[in-house]
């Protein structure tokens, strides 16, 4: 079997704040195959964005990767030199962000910002970069790309700017694209367009996507594999069909049940009781214990371990036995 493109193994990213240590990512493992779309789902503060920034090597003080490894194309990104990391970033490893309105520098033209990575990574001159840049804008469905190329970000709508971000991220044909809630800030109609665009583009190029979202609808639309995160940990991971059909973790079930369905009549929307605790308020045992309707005594006392419940289906919950999965096997669950 081929090696995974990205293997995150027992990653721990902690933030050393004045109030104490926040384990934003706490023992997270998953892998992404070539051409695959993997979604990380979770509420705000679940550690999904920190996970993606860890992969990009963009964790800033007071945050720090304190354990685990991130294998990208066989090389460990943790502890890689700044210089080597920069060569990957924007090149083989690209990222688009949640806020298209603020993610582009307001004082430089679209072309200037688009050409930057093309010139840097593909060693093109200004004219060649312009040609590639305009080509990319055309690819992401921007009308009159040669005009937009010379415009400044404030002249474009949110959807257009996100298209520019995608063009920028894909301009160097990355192997992995990390998309951190790329459609959250957009109108629903634009959202659908952007998702379709991303899917089309990567089908063409074979790029893998790590898709961060809190929207299960988007997950169902996009993902091959799904990782559910809660409190900095992976609570469940499975392929998208299994996850929606047989969710095992009470949190996953809660998330799915609280999404309204078009063919179901409900008097009231179901919601998961309580809110995500603050960084220092997680219970000692299972982090979800306080909000879990199926909570047992054991859950409050002991952190659950990962249990394998099916092919490529793992869950971190005491409800599903105590069979501990060998962590070394986990990378190959697909």
């Amino acid at each position: 079997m081929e090696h995974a493109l990205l293997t995150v193994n027992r990653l721990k990213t902690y933030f050393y704040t004045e109030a104490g240590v926040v384990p934003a990512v706490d023992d997270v493992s998953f892998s992404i195959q070539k051409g695959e779309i993997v979604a990380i789902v979770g509420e705000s503060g679940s550690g999904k964005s920190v996970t993606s920034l860890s992969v990009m090597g963009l964790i800033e003080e007071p945050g720090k990767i304190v354990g685990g490894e991130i294998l990208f194309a066989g090389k460990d990104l943790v502890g890689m030199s700044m210089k080597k990391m920069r060569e990957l970033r924007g090149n083989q490893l690209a990222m688009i962000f949640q806020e298209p309105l603020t993610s582009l520098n307001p004082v430089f033209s679209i072309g200037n910002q688009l050409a930057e990575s093309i010139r840097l990574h593909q060693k093109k001159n200004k004219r060649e970069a312009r040609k590639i840049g305009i080509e990319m804008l055309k690819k992401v469905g921007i009308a009159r790309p040669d005009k937009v190329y010379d415009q400044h970000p404030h002249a474009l709508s949110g959807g257009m700017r996100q298209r520019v971000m995608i063009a920028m991220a894909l301009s160097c044909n990355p192997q992995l694209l990390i998309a951190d809630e790329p459609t959250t800030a957009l109108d629903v109609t634009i959202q659908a367009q952007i998702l379709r665009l991303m899917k089309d583009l990567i089908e063409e190029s074979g790029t893998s996507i790590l898709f961060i979202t809190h929207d299960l609808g988007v997950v169902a639309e996009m993902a091959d594999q799904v990782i559910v995160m809660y409190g900095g940990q992976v609570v469940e991971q499975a392929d998208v069909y299994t996850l929606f059909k047989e969710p095992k973790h009470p949190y996953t079930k809660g998330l799915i049940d609280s999404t309204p369905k078009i063919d179901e009549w409900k008097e009231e929307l179901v919601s998961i009781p309580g809110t995500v605790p603050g960084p220092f308020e997680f219970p000692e045992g299972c982090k979800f214990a306080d909000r879990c309707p199926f909570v047992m005594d054991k859950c409050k006392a002991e952190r659950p371990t990962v249990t394998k419940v099916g092919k490529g289906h793992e869950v971190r919950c005491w409800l599903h036995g105590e069979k501990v999965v060998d962590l070394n096997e986990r990378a190959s669950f697909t």
Partner: protein
Amino acid sequence: MNYFLKRILEIIPVLLIITFIVFTLVFIAGDPVALLLPEDATTEDIAALQAALGLDDPFYVQYGRYVMNMLQGDFGTSFRYGEDAMLLVFERLPATLELAIASILVAIMIAIPLGIWSATKKNSSIDLVATGAAVLGKAMPNFWLGIMLILIFSVTYSIFPVSGRGSFAHLILPAITLGTGIAAEMTRLIRSSMLETLGQDYIRTAKSKGLRTGIVVYKHAFRNTLVPVVTIIALQTSTLIGGTLITETVFAWPGIGQLLIQAVNNRDMAIVQACVMVIAFFVIVMNLIADFLYQLLDPRIRYK
């Protein structure tokens, strides 16, 4: 461009209002005749001089005459020197401009690297030293720093001339005296606006492209802090043109500041008026230049 034409035309009423305020203040301050005549002058002498200078006319007549003359390019004659007041101011203007520009350059050369540096290395020892230096620079009075510089570099080591204007060497100590004070404030401003900019989403985007830290900091972040930097440079330059009096005195620098204070002491109305007009003109022009630069620096800013 219509916007700037409008702004330039607006200068005229602003200057008119300024003449009125200054004229009124000088009028209230008292009669210059008493200072012009010897102490034993008779009442008749005083009355005669007042009549000759038109100072016995009512306020509105004097002011009206003043404005009418001004519109014809005549800013009045100095009682003291018997010369055209505006010409006297123009004689001093190059010295003032020279010192102002040199001081701003000193401030920029210190503040920009130090501000960026302490922002990128926030809370490091460099940042602490820079912050300490900025507080010290702000707290040190100019006259004290000027005298200390003279003591060290002119008296003890004879590297620079003690005072006066002439060669480039004459310019260095007064420019450092004024420049360091401004640099202190500017460093704080650049540091805080750099810190704000460095936290923006587009900085993360720039980093995610694999750009070198230098490009992220100097191209993407610093370019966005230029609007506040231009603002403070414009403000400080206009302040320098009007108010370098203390430093001018310490270094016997023949600028407008000295001329103005002497004129105030002598109640030499025409020179006070001419000085204030020139200073006001520069304040307005500096603001105009700053507004114009904003447009170039930030494409989102467009005046209509």
